[in-house]
């Protein structure tokens, strides 16, 4: 029996050895695939096991974390959620992340290896680093001025520091509180469903994800093209564009709302927003000139990120002359995001040099140790410096004695341009009111802020909608707040 006992023992030990081989297969070979299986809850559990890193604006945190003691332990909270929602986005345990929460997720969730002083050690010990702190370029006072200015009306504001490209404010209205999407329960699902179904589209980030016809605000781009092309050498010299202007090759008359536009100078045309002059000059400058300038401002750029992706503003690459004429005054297929129009204003304010807009300044650990820094960088040279100087003067005249007087600020040099964009079939939609502007404090060496405001005021009577009436006061409040903030520094 000894022989059979030995064999039986060997068989039992072979069985146990097989177990170990199989365990090694599962725990080593298949382990990565098992970890990555979407049904495996360990990823989310680890991700939410610690408080998420904070997002700051002007040194103040605008986010927080709530300990739920549930399986996904820490839920995101937001202070002034609706106001900062177009900046932060949401970080939901059910619906994922968006905007800065999405773009900087690795840092905020603690997954970024750079957060650790000794990255390899964390990989070995499998410990998760505390979430990092993401410092945005947003100035709370500017953001607040913009949010209050819109006061729940549909629209958006984007404000930049022209010399650096820092985004000072990014507001979309109506907004929502991203905190209601944080959790996993039925309330979260209900909130998500309601927000997505709402007619007002509160989750749409109108400042960077929505494009509007820019209307007359686009005339700044056309003027830059015309000046750069040398078509106009003296801004005060009369042009030979008739009023009403008949679109080349058609019988369509392009009327002017303002008086005295027939053959008016470029300066007068910007000051009083003459359609005929800019349409005619744009058509004469030709598609390559206007398109090239528009693209130098950022139109047709699908890759722009701040770090969240910005919807591309469009200026058609192929057009007939009459279409070019319409496009030159911001109609036809031309569309722009509020951020894009703020970039137009910023390029003029910064002497023709357009800085790349950026929303995240730097990432640090909670203790403040720097992890990553985002530097200002050149985006494009939008126009000649001389052209920029001339446009600055023209825009100042708009505010001092033109269509944009509501934007004037005491103690500052303000340049602006109104826009009233018609849209919809046969232009029957409620027009959008635009105002783009920049401001330079009297004691400052350069403009401190550039802003674009759009108000798609569906409630207002059509005739009263104008850049000056609806949008300019908001721009003024935003710029005043920005100048005050920079002076306080």
């Amino acid at each position: 029996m000894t022989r059979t006992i030995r064999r039986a023992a060997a068989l039992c030990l072979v069985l146990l050895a097989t177990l170990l081989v199989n365990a090694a297969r599962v725990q080593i070979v298949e382990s990565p695939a098992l970890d990555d299986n979407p049904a495996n809850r360990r990823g989310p559990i680890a991700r939410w096991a610690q408080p998420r890193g904070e997002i700051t604006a002007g040194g103040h945190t605008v986010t927080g974390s709530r300990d739920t003691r549930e399986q996904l332990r820490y839920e995101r909270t937001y202070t002034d959620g609706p106001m900062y929602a177009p900046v932060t986005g949401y970080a939901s345990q059910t619906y994922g992340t968006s905007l800065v929460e999405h773009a900087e997720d690795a840092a905020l969730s603690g997954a970024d290896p750079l957060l650790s002083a000794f990255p390899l050690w964390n990989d070995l010990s499998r410990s998760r680093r505390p979430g990092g702190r993401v410092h945005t370029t947003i100035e709370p006072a500017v953001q607040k001025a913009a949010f209050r200015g819109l006061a729940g009306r549909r629209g958006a504001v984007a404000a930049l520091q022209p010399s650096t490209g820092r985004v000072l404010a990014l507001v979309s209205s109506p907004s929502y509180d991203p905190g209601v999407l944080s959790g996993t329960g039925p309330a979260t699902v209900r909130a998500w469903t309601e927000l997505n179904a709402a007619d007002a589209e509160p989750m749409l980030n109108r400042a960077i994800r929505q494009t509007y016809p820019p209307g007359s605000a686009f005339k700044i781009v056309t003027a830059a093209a015309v000046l750069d092309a040398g078509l106009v050498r003296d801004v005060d010299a009369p042009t030979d564009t008739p009023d009403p202007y008949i679109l080349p090759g058609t019988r369509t008359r392009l009327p002017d709302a303002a008086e005295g536009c027939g053959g008016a100078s470029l300066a007068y045309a910007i000051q009083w927003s003459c359609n005929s002059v800019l349409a005619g000059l744009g058509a004469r400058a030709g598609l390559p000139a206007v398109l090239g300038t528009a693209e130098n401002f950022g139109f047709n750029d699908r890759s722009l990120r701040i770090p969240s992706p910005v919807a591309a503003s469009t200026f058609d690459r192929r057009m007939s002359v009459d279409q070019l004429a319409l496009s030159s005054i911001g109609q036809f297929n031309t569309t722009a995001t509020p951020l894009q129009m703020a970039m137009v204003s910023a390029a003029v304010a910064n002497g023709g040099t357009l800085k790349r807009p950026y929303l995240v300044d730097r990432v640090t650990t909670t203790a403040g140790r720097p992890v990553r820094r985002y530097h200002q960088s050149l985006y494009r040279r939008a126009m000649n410096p001389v052209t920029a100087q001339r446009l600055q003067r023209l825009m100042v005249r708009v505010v001092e004695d033109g269509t944009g007087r509501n934007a004037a600020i005491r103690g500052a040099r303000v340049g602006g341009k109104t826009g009233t964009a018609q849209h919809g079939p046969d232009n029957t939609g409620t027009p959008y009111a635009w105002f783009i502007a920049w401001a330079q404090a009297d004691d400052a060496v350069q403009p401190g802020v550039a802003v674009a405001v759009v108000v798609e005021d569906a409630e207002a009577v059509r005739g009263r909608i104008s850049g000056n009436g609806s949008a300019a006061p908001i721009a003024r409040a935003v710029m005043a707040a920005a100048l005050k903030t920079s002076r306080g520094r």
Partner: protein
Amino acid sequence: MTASAGPGTDPGTGTAAGPGAPVAAGRRRGVELLLLTGAVLIPVYGYASVGLARGGAVPPDVLGYGAGLGTLALLAHLAVRLRAPAADPLILPIAVLLNGLGLVLIYRLDLETAEDAAAPAQLVWSTLGVGLFIVVVALLPDHRLLARYAYVSVVTALALMVAPVLFPPVNGARIWIRVGDLSFQPGEFAKILLALFFAAYLAANRRTLAFRGRGLRRFRLPPARVLSPVVTVWLISVGVLVLERDLGSSLLFFGLFVLMLYVATGRTGWILAGLALAAAGAYAVGTVEPHVHGRVDDWLDPFASVRAGQGPGQLAQSLFSFGAGGLLGTGLGLGHSALIGFATKSDFILATAGEELGLTGLTGIVLLYALLVARGFRAGLGLRDDFGRLLAVGLASIVALQVFVITGGVTGLIPLTGMAMPFLAQGGSSTVANWIIVALLIRLSDAAREPLPGEPGGDPPAEERSPLLAGNLDESRADRRTPR
């Protein structure tokens, strides 16, 4: 080694006072005590580390827990020292270590299910188990006495297995007897009684089974008169289990029967016939029984339910656990094996070990079982009576097969069958039954390593061993020195 080799030539029963001689290797109670100290300290360390990982502090009752486990170990050790002084010094420490680790894992899982604490009950069952261990070691002077109760045990075993049919099923399996709050799984005890019966019956009839019978060329079938009782008992036990839907135990009894028959008769045909029967039976049951069919489907594709959008099933969750553990594990208290949900503390306790102790810890645990199994077989080799040899083989095989069926099931090697991991899993009947198995192994190994005087087989001279039989500890220590 040849089949005809007598016990005298087996290692461990040699006549010389060399390293393998029974007198030199026989006692070793000091080694056992040392190993027991480690077997108590390791779970205490684990208990403290769970507390540190979860609450940031060592649990306040860690000393109490250590003292409790230590007292149990010490009492068991004293019983062995007094009543089975030559017993294998590894068996008891392995049992204590596995039981202690099980308590730590169950306590750790209790933290996830605050309303349903299982560790206190498991501690009570462990105490009861050790108590029974002491009773068996103290009151059973010679394992051969058990052979007399072969038919009593088989009747009891069958009664125990049939009894749960009269009670309502729990989670689809009729393997429980519930009286008030107490539940009891009779199959756990039936397996010991069946091993006992098989050992006694096969020992008495093994030559007939091996060499007699009608021949059909080379294949010889044993006489039906001899074979039929065993086959009948086996068929009944397996039949009952299929009715009760406890396929783990069914597989265990089947494997136990085939292995013991092979060891007794030395005929490989039994293994082949057994495998063929097992394959046929598995196919039939797998096709007919939906409960089993589902298990097989789940085994073939554990992630089908995930793809179907129904979330991961138990096996998928178990595999996630093992995968998350990787080589080194997450650390005690830091894994998420509680996601498996139902049966984490019982059938799936190993997933917690796999996740929190990693492949390293799992390997350690499987090696502990392997060592226990090996010591069981070793006792079998050392014994001279056929009954004892077969009983040792049977008990060791029960442990090995059980570990294989459960571990293979939760790691996706074979279809999942609900069964309790010996000592590690939550379960009163299982813990108590396994302590009885260990008590019997202690008794068998004591007999194997301490040959009785007057037995044939070239044992050492009786006068050298007589002090040991008297149980005099001082004498035994002196005795250990004499051969050198």
